[in-house]
């Protein structure tokens, strides 16, 4: 090459961003540009005369892992044949691909995370479909049960047959439990739908005193062992709620209280209008004499379904809490002085905008 041309080429080589190294037949570096010296962490002119140190083959593209001043770097190296000072030599161009590698790794990680999320969602949907199908299936034997019992009782009455009281009571109890089973099944279904977002509230202006009174009356009809005492406010209490859902919540809480409360003691139910949750709210408190271990963590467990926990409040309270939360409200479980359990439901009267 001519002197001037060679000088210009050297200028170019010195200035470009990629590292350029020229290696002779013995594997020694005869030229390194500034970028290459920076990559290898050497002072200017520091590399010339050293062994290149890496396998270098004409026509190849390889990746090298370098450590520059303590930092790991990935470098892509392309090698071509050339002549240097009249002798055959190899030209290696070195490109820092550390950032590129990192971006690729991140992209793969995102993809993996997304795939895992998609699979989790699919599993959840399958579970909900199964739940819905199972719950639907359960309704048939429950319907048969109830119709069969009711029909039997009707016929006996109609034909003037005096069934022994214990038989009639047993049948009535079975019918009640079948009804309870049905409510649990409905709750299962509701939970599945709340999970996959297909559950929606149908709000309407509801007289809460009436609703709670009816639910309590129904519950009282199911037990002679417990006295349900209801306190309602004097003036009417109306709210824009899903009446069916709230009725379910009230029934669920009262039924639970009946199941676990010490027989002979009263179960106090109080409905009031209060200032809470940033405005006016309705508050329903159900206080029973159920004896649970007086540990704070038990209170938490009551709100989460736990198959290992024997308290058995399980589904009813969990579903109730979700439904109350859908209304923008909250459920608290308290252990008042004097024993027993108090469940407090607070629901804002005004729907949040």
């Amino acid at each position, binding site marked *: 090459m001519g002197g001037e041309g060679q000088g210009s080429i050297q200028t170019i080589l010195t200035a470009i961003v990629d590292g350029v190294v020229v290696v002779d037949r013995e594997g020694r570096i005869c030229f390194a540009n500034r970028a290459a010296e920076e990559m290898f962490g050497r002072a200017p002119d520091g590399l010339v005369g050293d062994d290149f140190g890496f396998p270098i083959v004409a026509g190849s593209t390889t990746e090298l892992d370098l450590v520059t001043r303590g930092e790991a770097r990935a470098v892509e190296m392309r090698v071509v044949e050339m002549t240097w000072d009249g002798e055959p030599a190899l030209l290696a161009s070195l490109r820092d691909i550390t950032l590129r590698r990192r971006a690729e790794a991140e992209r793969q990680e995102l993809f993996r995370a997304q795939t895992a999320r998609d699979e989790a969602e699919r599993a959840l949907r399958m579970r909900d479909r199964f739940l819905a199908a199972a719950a*639907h299936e359960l*309704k*048939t034997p*429950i*319907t*048969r*049960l*109830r*119709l*069969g019992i*009711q*029909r039997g009782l*009707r*016929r006996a009455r*109609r*034909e003037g047959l005096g069934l022994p009281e214990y038989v009639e009571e047993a049948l009535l109890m079975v019918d009640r439990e*079948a*009804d309870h089973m*049905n409510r649990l099944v*409905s709750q299962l*279904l*509701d939970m599945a*739908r709340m999970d996959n977002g297909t559950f929606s509230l149908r709000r309407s202006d509801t007289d809460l005193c009436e609703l709670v009174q009816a639910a309590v009356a129904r519950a009282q009809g199911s037990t002679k062992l417990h006295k349900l005492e209801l306190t309602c406010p004097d003036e009417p209490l109306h709210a824009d709620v899903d009446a069916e859902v709230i009725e379910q919540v009230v029934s669920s809480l009262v039924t639970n209280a009946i199941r676990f409360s010490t027989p002979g003691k009263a179960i106090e139910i109080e409905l009031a209008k209060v200032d809470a949750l940033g405005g006016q709210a309705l508050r329903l408190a159900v206080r029973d004499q159920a004896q649970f271990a007086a540990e704070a963590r038990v209170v938490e467990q009551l709100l989460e379904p736990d198959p290992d926990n024997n308290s058995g409040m399980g589904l009813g309270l969990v579903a109730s809490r979700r439904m109350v939360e859908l209304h923008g409200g909250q459920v608290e479980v308290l252990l008042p002085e004097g024993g027993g359990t108090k469940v407090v439901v607070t629901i804002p009267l005004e729907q949040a905008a």
Partner: protein
Amino acid sequence: MVISEGPTGPMIHPSTTPQTGLGARRVLVVDDDPVISTYIAETLGDEGYEASTASNGAAALRMLEQDRVSGRPDPDLILLDMRMPVMDGWTFAREYRKLPGPHARILVITAAHDALNRLQEVQAVEVLPKPFDLDELLDAVDRCVGAETAA
């Protein structure tokens, strides 16, 4: 009297009260569960209705068509389950309304959670979610049959 669709044609069972004769209000119970439809039909029979049963929409249509051919009017009320094999409640309602009127009122009995949607979907007069009390059923049937003929 209780009439149901048996393997070789309609079957007649005596109910526990004497037949009330002409003028008895007639109800057709369409439900694929034979236990449920029998309980309902027998209860209705006891209360003085003339009840017949069909196990799916297609069987129900057949029975209605047979009645019409022999000059009988449609029943006063059809109790309709929605999920049935062969022909479901929706299809039955659609096919039934294609026949010339007047049409019987429809009372939907269903286990579905969004039961109330059925009202509009099949133009029913009422929906009774399963499971229900026999008392609830009888009240609903009384209400729906009424004194006037169906539209």
